């Protein structure tokens, strides 16, 4: 018996197994390929009318002495009247991936997860100690299926930010980790 005869049979066993794979509901993580990402810059979606606010804090009474006229108005501004949260769409697609969807059917689902690195924060380019909390969602998913039954997915991102702790205006930058897998 030739030494490789067993391997020969094993090869065709494997091949036969692959060829006999059922053709339904078989999204497999190895179907994904050619992940591409694009850097995106956008202006924060903040209404210009909200960039200069004068908030009246009501009225006050102060008792003064004509010889020592110092009194405490005691203004105590709350956090009402303005918001520090906004959601900004990042323009064109931010990530793209192609999947071999020949074996997929309508029950297959793809799970896309976003993680904003650096503890979920964007850092001011001018002053990294000034930080903004950020989270990411997909606001649009472009799907194009080709004749070879590959499918290209393009994800468009929207970034929700809370800039309550920011101290600087200008560019805030960060990295979003995109994880794509077949939904369990």
């Amino acid at each position, binding site marked *: 018996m030739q030494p*490789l005869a067993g*391997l*020969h049979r094993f*090869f065709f066993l494997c091949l036969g197994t692959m060829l006999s794979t059922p053709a339904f509901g078989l999204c497999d*993580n*190895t179907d*994904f390929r050619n992940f*591409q*990402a*694009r*850097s*995106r*810059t*956008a*202006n*924060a979606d903040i209404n210009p009318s909200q*960039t*200069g*606010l*004068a908030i009246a*804090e009501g*009225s*006050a*009474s*102060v008792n*003064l*002495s*004509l*010889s020592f*006229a*110092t*009194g*405490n108005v005691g*203004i105590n*501004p709350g956090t009402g009247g*303005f918001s520090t949260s906004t959601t*900004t769409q*990042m323009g064109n697609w*931010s990530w793209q*991936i192609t999947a071999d969807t020949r074996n997929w059917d309508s029950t297959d689902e793809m799970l896309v997860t976003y993680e904003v690195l650096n503890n979920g924060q*964007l850092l001011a*380019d*001018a002053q990294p100690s*000034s930080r*903004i909390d950020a989270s990411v969602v997909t606001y649009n998913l472009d799907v194009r299926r080709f004749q070879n039954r590959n499918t290209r997915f393009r994800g468009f991102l929207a*970034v929700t930010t809370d*800039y*309550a*702790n*920011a*101290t*600087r*205006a200008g*560019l*805030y930058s*960060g*990295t*979003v980790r*995109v*994880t794509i897998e077949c939904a369990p």
Partner: protein
Amino acid sequence: MFKRGIAIFLLGMALAMPWQQVQAQAVGDTDISIDFPNIVILHYVSSLTLTFDAGTITPEDTVDDGPVTPAAAGITDATATFDLGVDGTSGSNPWPNTVPVRLENAWAVRGISTSGTIDVDISITGANAVNGTSTATMSAARVTGGGQGPSANITIPAPGFGTPTVGDVDFSLDVSGVTTAQTHTGMSYQIQASAP
């Protein structure tokens, strides 16, 4: 030769299997940048009542004009109640000509700017508080805050949106024209906060 090729193929498959297991997900990074504009929020008191208590007043001269109940001044409404019982024999006005008024914690600022600072300015938009012919006049308004001032305009560090920077207002109040102790109205100042 064919068998050797199969062996190489199977070896390749064996090597590829662990890689496929590692590639259980497709993972990639995308860089994002968002440009935030200057944002300035000014908190202010829109109506201020100044009530002057003359109980400790020291008359500049000794006069006897009868019971005199001097000054009251405020931004939109002011009242004063005095009962000095000044007893003098000369002069026409027992009050100091000007009173330095200091209003602590009269404004607050929040915000961000590209420079990291915010300008705070004050201007007088209504100098006189009047009641008939009785007049008190405000001048030399200044602001203090964030370790800066007093000055008509100061530049303070931008505090962000959490804890605001709180500041004071001071001005001189000329009460030499005050002849009645009732409410005097019409005096106002304006504070403006802006990103430089």
